[in-house]
């Protein structure tokens, strides 16, 4: 076990180097020289040279690559081109609004999906199961943009139940601002979550131990909750853990539409301003967090299921 974890930890190194290389390739090699764009068309050669020096772009490419690698470990991403602020500072500022939206939405959608999938697993093959499955697929086929625009227009603008846009710090002041985006997040997650959980639960239902449980006269509900759910929890937990990085990434579109000053909205603003360092920082940060959580998810899997061979 310990051996496996150590080996898995060591594997982080080549993956992190690979991710840094990919990001370096995109932003430092393919993207080209940004100084002309940054300084406008009246820039003198000397100004451009100074700016290149300041941004660390006159270093040899290898040293620039090392800078990217370093930022993946130190989370020191430099300054934004648009706001001139430290990117680390901007991330800290954005974390609170982002997490007040994503964490409750994530918890509610996961619990709700679990209940719905248990319900449809109980009635598998019956009309209600087919109907909810169809609803899931249909719900997943509507563009996220359509949900956001439609709901914002109807519930916030027409009916005035929620704030159209903005944010206030502190509980319960933020509730009217995050309620509608959170509801949209939940609706967007229900489809894929229920589909996945249902498949996992039904995978277990056809196992021998379930037949044994049924043979000894246990009720369907007891089987589902006591036996099936416990075994199905393993893939469900790993699936859930691997989604946590996306909470930190924030809800790009939702924050943008609802004027929530979080990390997701910040990323889209950076995109509109061609603010390369912020996008680069977000790419690095989200990858590092993703790599860490996929490791956690793998380790949890092996802890939760002793049958999994540790190779």
């Amino acid at each position, binding site marked *: 076990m310990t051996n496996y974890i150590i080996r898995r930890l060591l594997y982080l190194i080549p*993956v992190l180097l690979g991710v840094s290389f990919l990001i370096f390739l995109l932003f430092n090699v393919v*993207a080209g020289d940004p100084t002309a764009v940054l300084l406008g068309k009246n820039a003198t050669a000397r100004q451009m040279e100074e700016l290149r020096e300041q941004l660390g772009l006159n270093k040899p490419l290898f040293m620039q690559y090392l800078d990217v690698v370093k930022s993946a470990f130190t989370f020191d991403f430099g300054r934004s081109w648009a706001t001139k602020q430290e990117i680390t500072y901007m991330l800290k500022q954005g974390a609170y609004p982002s997490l007040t939206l994503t964490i409750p939405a994530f918890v509610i959608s996961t619990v709700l999906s679990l209940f719905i999938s248990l319900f449809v697993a109980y009635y598998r093959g019956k009309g209600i199961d087919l109907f909810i499955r169809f609803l899931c697929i*249909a719900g997943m086929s509507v563009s996220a*943009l359509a949900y956001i625009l439609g709901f914002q227009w109807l519930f916030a603008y027409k009916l005035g139940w929620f704030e159209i846009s903005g944010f206030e710090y502190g509980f319960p002041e933020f509730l009217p601002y995050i309620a509608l985006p959170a509801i949209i997040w939940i609706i967007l997650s229900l489809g894929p979550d229920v589909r996945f959980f249902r498949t996992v639960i039904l995978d277990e239902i056809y196992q021998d131990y379930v037949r044994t449980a049924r043979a000894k006269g246990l009720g369907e509900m007891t089987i589902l909750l006591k036996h099936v759910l416990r075994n199905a929890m393993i893939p469900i937990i790993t699936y859930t853990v691997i989604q946590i990085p996306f909470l930190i990434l924030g809800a790009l579109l939702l924050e943008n539409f609802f004027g929530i000053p979080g990390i997701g909205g910040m990323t889209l603003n950076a995109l509109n301003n061609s603010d*390369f360092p912020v996008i680069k920082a977000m*790419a690095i940060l989200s*990858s590092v967090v993703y790599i860490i959580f996929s490791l956690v998810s793998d380790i949890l899997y092996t802890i939760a299921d002793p049958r999994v061979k540790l190779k």
Partner: protein
Amino acid sequence: MKENSLWKDAFIRLTKDKWALASLIIVVVYSLVAILSACGFIAADWAQEVGASNLAPNAEHIFGTDIFGRSVFQKVVRGTQVAMSVGLATSLIAIPIGVVLGAVGGYFGGWVDDFITWLYTTFSSIPNIMLLISITMILGKGLFAVYVALGATSWVTLCRLIRGEVMKHKEREYVQAASAIGGGHTRKLFKHILPNVTHIVIINTSLQFQVAIKSEVILSYLGLGVQGEPSWGTMIDDAKLELARGVWWQLAGATLAMFIIVLAFNILGDALRDSLDPKLKGK
């Protein structure tokens, strides 16, 4: 009596499912619309003014007109061409890369496999949306960047699936038999193993296609996608400002067009899995 081939069997199973058949027909219709539009037979003059500005849907213009008096229906058709071209281009990039890397890694193992595993782990470690945004931003706006970005993100799943399946197959008796009669690596891999994993490519492509369409809409909405031509994403972007004035038909048209094709690919993907891989049926 002549036995049906595996593929014919699968096709018969597929057509018995009326939902799958309907989905297949929808995909064919959308493809035809896209091809006809690309060749300039339909919606070629989408940019022309056909009526007053912002007309609500009526008998003449079933989806209404936009702010410049252009037919929203024609824009939807033109957007279909963009969406389908993105799905196709993504598949054309993702399938060769995913199949070749996955097959080579799974078959040869050793350091080759280690390298390929590292490569797809690296690509899958950057959350898709960040990789899509980064690539399109750096390559510059436009369809080419969207093709490259979606190609770069979508080969990973296919590669992983093919690698796993080829690993299982290379130990099977039929492959051993092929070695016994002197078949080389190339022959074993391409002639014997790959035909047995083709179903994975088909199932995966059907699901990837709709992911590509959905991503194109979001990238175009963000202003990173197609320029100077209507796309479902840019139509939704227009609608963002028009909704408050009660102009809902651009949003409705684009959303409906996208909903139907994405739903069809979703249902088709599931049905293909059931018919090509009957072991999984009922799960």
